[in-house]
């Protein structure tokens, strides 16, 4: 029908928007700017039924263009953003926040701080209540910048030591920054969410002023409060804190246990296994074996000498003691179908030997126990090692040959 093809305002602007989008995707900023000038008049029409109105479009598109266009400057960007702020009161705080981010990305920390402070003092009837989340974020980021100043001042003081009165004012400023930062950071981390950076900074502040209890509580909340989204980093921070303060192995282990459950491939699994191996409790040692096997399931660990060393050590210890071979059997059961091709192929044997002798040593030990002395990997490595007359390989060969029956028991 003729109506479908009629060129009307809405369709014309839609088409214009398509041209803008195409130009942006092809990084043709001049062309995008050109079409944007024709789109801008949409601001004068009513689009209240649209999901995303022209003012938001123009804000987002204009920001992109000004970020990338060769002739654009910070001054131009700032003036553009100020206009955007006046366009939509419902988006005011969001625009302020993103403006601050942009300034920070360009290294303009002071301007960002000013913007955030200004935004903090904004009041607009019930909009202030509706935009509460953005306000909290603005306060949090301002708090972050306060932390940043505090940190700078702290470093200045630490470098120069406490000599002279000039330091007194710096010190006072530092404390005031601390107070401002602490208030805002504490507020934001109460809300369930992912606040890694804020938590780290807040804990840093608390530790400096000796409030370890508060710090521990904050970290516990962040890691264990079920309202917060599951976040491996929370457990890492807690673990690092506990370690710093010399907490018991028990608490360290319980912190890392959850990390193992969430992210079995985490880099701290080596520390975890090392702790568990040394434990006197059987359950812990058993867990240690599980942890190291699980980590090595991941491709990123394939060439990690330390990880293989952990596994090799534990496997060797179990074999020598002749106790708990069933542990190895249990772990190997689900892996015997795919680990040989994944870790112990002939190709990998050649490569590992060429690139990293220590890696091949550790792996050969594990392969020899799990797959027997006749497996491709062990045969190749031990042959090469003995040929090169490296002592430990001769010892390895003897060891594996001696304990070959173990392999038979595991694989049955």
């Amino acid at each position: 029908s003729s109506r479908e093809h009629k060129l009307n305002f809405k369709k014309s602007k839609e088409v214009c928007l398509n041209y803008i989008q195409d130009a942006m995707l092809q990084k043709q900023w001049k062309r995008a700017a050109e079409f944007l000038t024709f789109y801008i008049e949409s601001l004068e029409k009513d689009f209240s039924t649209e999901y995303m109105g022209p003012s938001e479009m123009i804000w987002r598109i204009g920001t992109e263009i000004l970020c990338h266009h060769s002739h654009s400057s910070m001054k131009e960007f700032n003036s553009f953003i100020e206009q955007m702020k006046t366009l939509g009161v419902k988006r005011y705080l969001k625009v302020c926040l993103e403006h601050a981010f942009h300034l920070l990305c360009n290294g303009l920390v002071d301007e960002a701080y000013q913007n955030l402070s200004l935004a903090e003092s904004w009041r607009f009837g019930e909009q202030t209540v509706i935009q509460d989340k953005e306000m909290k974020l603005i306060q949090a980021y301002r708090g972050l910048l306060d932390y940043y100043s505090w940190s700078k001042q702290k470093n200045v003081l630490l470098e120069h030591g406490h000599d002279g009165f000039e330091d007194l004012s710096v010190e006072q400023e530092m404390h005031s920054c601390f107070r401002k930062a602490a208030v805002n950071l504490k507020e934001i981390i109460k809300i369930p969410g992912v606040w890694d950076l804020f938590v780290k900074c807040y804990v840093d502040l608390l530790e400096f002023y000796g409030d370890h209890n508060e710090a521990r509580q904050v970290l516990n909340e962040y890691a264990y409060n079920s309202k917060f989204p599951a976040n491996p980093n929370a457990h890492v921070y807690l673990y690092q804190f506990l370690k710093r303060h010399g907490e018991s192995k028990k608490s360290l282990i319980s912190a890392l246990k959850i990390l193992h459950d969430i992210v079995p491939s985490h880099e701290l699994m080596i520390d975890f296994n090392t702790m568990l191996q040394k434990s006197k409790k059987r359950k812990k040692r058993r867990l240690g074996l599980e942890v190291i096997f699980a980590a090595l399931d991941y491709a990123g660990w394939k060439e990690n000498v330390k990880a293989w060393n952990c596994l090799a050590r534990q496997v060797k210890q179990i074999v020598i003691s002749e106790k708990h071979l069933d542990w190895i059997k249990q772990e190997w059961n689900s892996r015997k179908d795919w680990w040989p091709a994944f870790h112990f192929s002939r190709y990998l044997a050649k490569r590992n030997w060429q690139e990293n002798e220590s890696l091949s040593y550790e792996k050969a030990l594990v392969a020899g126990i799990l797959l027997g002395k006749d497996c491709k990997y062990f045969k190749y490595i031990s042959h090469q090692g003995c040929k090169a007359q490296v002592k430990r390989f001769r010892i390895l060969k003897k060891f594996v040959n001696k304990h070959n029956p173990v392999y038979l028991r595991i694989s049955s």
Partner: protein
Amino acid sequence: QSWPAYEEVYNKMLELAAFLDLPRFPDITDSCFLHPDMLCMKYLMEANLPDELHNWTCRVVKKICIGEVDFLTLMPGNKSTRKVKYDVLAVAVIVVVLKLLFLLDDHYEWLLSDFAEERNKNNKEGGPYFEFKKWYKVIKCSLDVEQKKLDEERAKYLWRCEKPLFYSAQKKSKVLKRRQIVVNLQNQFGKLSGSVRPAEKPNPSSFQLSWSEENTDGSCFHGHSLKGILQEKCGLLTAMNPDYWLCTVKLCTEKLCGHLAHYREVDFPQSYHFVLRLFSFLLRIQPSYIHDEVCVIEHKLFNKKLCKKPKYNIGLRK
């Protein structure tokens, strides 16, 4: 908020003429610009088709009596006669002629073109024979370029008026403030648009596509001869193509659905669609309008055959 469609304007024009009780308009004779023979010449030129086709269009016009004064001249208020859309009529005649000579069923026109190409190799005297394939390539290229330009222009179209409108005193300040922001933003991004091309002086001629025989690249087909696709029979040159297909076997009743025929691109050969697309671009109307007119002309042209044997299917022999 929108550009009015051709049909709307046309109908309003008729209503207005009737309302104003206008008398019969000045006669349209064969020396008038609006006469199909004249308009066919114009569009043949613009479509870069051989001048020789004009003989054929005149023959069709004569045969179906659409060159008559009484048929062409507008009589406002007279509801019994179908109103003539001069340009649409002219291009529809051209389309029919193309169908007569080239069939346009996505097979024959290409075969014929190859045949003409062969004959062209031995053609030493006079101008080259017209080859459909060559024409298609040239036109498609130009059409795509022009269409792209038109699409971009439409995307850049500015709708707002010079003075902002507002309906209440309260809104005034808000509207003016908005206008100020719009102007500022347009300036800001206008500067970033790169070199602004100075507004080209609009071409006074009404031709959108122009072809010159002075071009050495052989892209002008006006002087090409149709001999390559015609054959001699009884001393006369007739088309080699013996077939014809009707666009529609039966015309719709205009009163019921507003159209005489319904055009869907997928139902018709690509070549036919291409030809419609070309003329619909030149006239800035939807292809379906031209298609309607083509159907009417065909029904007039083959009227006798249709009346005799109403059970004819597509693929009527001439």
